[in-house]
């Protein structure tokens, strides 16, 4: 970005009390006279440095450039918020306490609905968009913040109660945006340095942020629109660096009164931001698109497969990492199916002797990466429900041999049980499941978040 901050002391306004040329705050109280007013006048004198209008000198800063970045963020963050809400709904938190990471959500869960199982790639698409777009928006967010940084150092900091309150909301806006981007980006890299569970931080943080975002959009949409219409895009695209000039002075506080020589045109700044977004997309998107493109995700956590063969697709957590031992999933392993008909116990051989069904389904993680459609085969959850004496079960509690840990027990909803593609899988791609993919048996449900496709299943409890 064109950072045209101070360009040497000689270029700076020299007057010690003048805060730059004719930028007088509109509606400021009367001229100094009484002692109280004199203190007020002293307060109006900006301290040196970034508080002076002459400090910020980039000739391309102005309402137009800020509005372009703002427009992109308006669209991008709206998509981020909606895909985030869907992602939250996909866990079916209303189904029961084991599914609900955020029991204190109150009205913030007002929109919740039973997550569908059609189309089977719905969650994969939702998370791929949420995470990849979030990564791609980073340069736009940074550019937007760069474009408005002089406003942070407005002097005096506030003149009216309205400005004071708005500054608080802007702290929520900027802090909230950075908090959401930071927790998301750290979480997809398994770098858990944030203070608490990702789910609660990212969920409640999103609501704090979106409150400030909505207010900001409501108050600035008109300004943004007028600024965008003031200069035609084609004019900007035709203007090179040498002919780049500041926007006409206005009340936005963004246009510099002491422009330095342009070192980058507006179209250059847009191209640079766009290039940043494209480069990030290029090294990230492959882990969500899969197929041959996976290898292009050079910096994304799941840009490679962990091996070859039938089980050579990405793993969320290996058996060893969650403490599942060979004994847990060895010959002594049994599946227990609980229902009104009592508890029935099966060995893996007994399960294999029952009618097997096929489903081609992906595994999609909340972290945005996904495995392409794999050929699973095993028992239909619907058949197991009938076996338990509960063909119309409202939910099933799926328990793993994994001891403790988040998502070792989850609840699946009625539509997930009924879908003919929902399996307790025993095979994948024509071979036994590998230990890391959930041997002896795992759940696979269409459009379901990866962690709710429980691995190393030990118990299925069907409920009304």
């Amino acid at each position: 970005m064109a950072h045209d901050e101070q360009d040497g002391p000689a270029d700076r306004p020299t007057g010690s009390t003048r805060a730059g040329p004719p930028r007088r705050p509109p509606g400021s109280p009367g001229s100094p006279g009484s002692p109280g007013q004199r203190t007020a006048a002293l307060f109006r004198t900006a301290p040196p440095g970034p508080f002076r209008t002459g400090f910020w000198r980039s000739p391309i800063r102005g309402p137009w450039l800020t509005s372009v970045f703002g427009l992109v963020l308006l669209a991008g963050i709206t998509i981020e918020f909606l895909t985030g809400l869907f992602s939250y709904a996909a866990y079916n938190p209303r189904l029961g306490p084991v599914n609900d990471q955020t029991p204190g959500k109150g009205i913030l869960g007002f929109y919740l609905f039973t997550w569908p199982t059609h189309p089977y790639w719905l969650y994969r698409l939702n998370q791929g968009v949420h995470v990849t777009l979030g990564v791609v928006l980073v340069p736009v967010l940074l550019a937007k913040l760069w474009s408005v940084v002089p406003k942070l150092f407005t002097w005096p900091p506030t003149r009216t109660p309205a400005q004071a309150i708005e500054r608080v909301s802007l702290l929520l806006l900027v802090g909230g945006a950075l908090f959401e981007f930071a927790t998301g980006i750290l979480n997809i890299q398994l770098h858990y340095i944030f203070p608490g569970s990702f789910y609660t931080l990212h969920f409640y943080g999103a609501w704090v942020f979106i409150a400030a975002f909505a207010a900001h959009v409501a108050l600035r949409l008109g300004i943004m629109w007028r600024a965008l219409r003031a200069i035609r895009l084609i004019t900007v695209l035709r203007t090179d660096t040498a002919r780049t000039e500041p926007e006409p002075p206005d009340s936005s506080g963004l246009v510099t009164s002491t422009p330095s020589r342009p070192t980058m045109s507006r179209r250059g700044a847009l191209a640079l931001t766009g290039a940043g977004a494209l480069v990030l997309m290029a090294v990230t998107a492959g882990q969500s698109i899969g197929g041959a493109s996976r290898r292009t995700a050079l910096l994304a956590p799941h840009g490679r497969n962990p091996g070859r063969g039938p089980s050579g697709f990405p793993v969320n957590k290996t058996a060893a990492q969650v403490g599942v031992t060979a004994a847990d999933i060895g010959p002594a392993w049994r599946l227990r199916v609980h229902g009104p008909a009592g508890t029935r116990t099966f060995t893996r051989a007994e399960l294999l002797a029952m009618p097997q069904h096929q489903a081609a389904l992906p595994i999609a993680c909340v972290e945005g990466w996904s495995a392409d459609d794999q050929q699973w085969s095993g028992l239909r959850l619907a058949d197991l429900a009938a076996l338990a004496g509960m063909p119309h079960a409202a939910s099933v509690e799926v328990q793993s041999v994994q001891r403790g840990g988040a998502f070792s027990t989850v609840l699946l909803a009625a539509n997930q049980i009924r879908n003919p593609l929902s399996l307790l899988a025993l095979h994948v791609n024509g071979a036994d499941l590998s230990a890391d993919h959930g041997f002896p048996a795992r759940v696979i449900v269409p459009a379901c978040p990866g962690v709710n496709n429980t691995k190393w299943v030990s118990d299925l409890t069907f409920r009304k």
Partner: protein
Amino acid sequence: MNRLHRRLLRSYGARPVHLLAMAGCLALAAYAALQLLAGRTLAVAAWFVGAALVHDLVLVPLYSTADLTARRTLGRGHTGTTPYLNHLRVPVYLSGLLLLVWYPLILRRSQPYRGDTALSEDVFLTHWLLITAALFAASAAHLALRGLLQRLRRPPRPPAGDTAKRPAPPPGGAS
């Protein structure tokens, strides 16, 4: 109604819609914040406010100073601009952006990565360095190509005319 409007403008400093938007914003934010902060008030508040402070008071000054230093070090060409500046800026910016987003993997900060995914985290530093090298190489190649095209396009002239051919300084440039 009009008088109320004017009184609000005088005492509050903005239109009623501003007050409503702010009240709605703060009420919803406070409602969510009660849960966000529950049991870890200081740590979460530090992250929330700290994110803004680190960006505004560390990251922005850091990259601005770096940019300013680059501009001064490279000096100015005879046209008053710094012709190589953007050939440096672009690869530095893109490489820095990749590092900023993917540093936990590149710098091997991610503790459970290898155990969770059965993948090695050693590749990311190599990838980032290779991408960075490619970005600088592409920028250098572009610069060389520009120079070559400029030389080809410039018709041979008597050496005396050279001084008179300087491009005019850009309008609105020098302060």
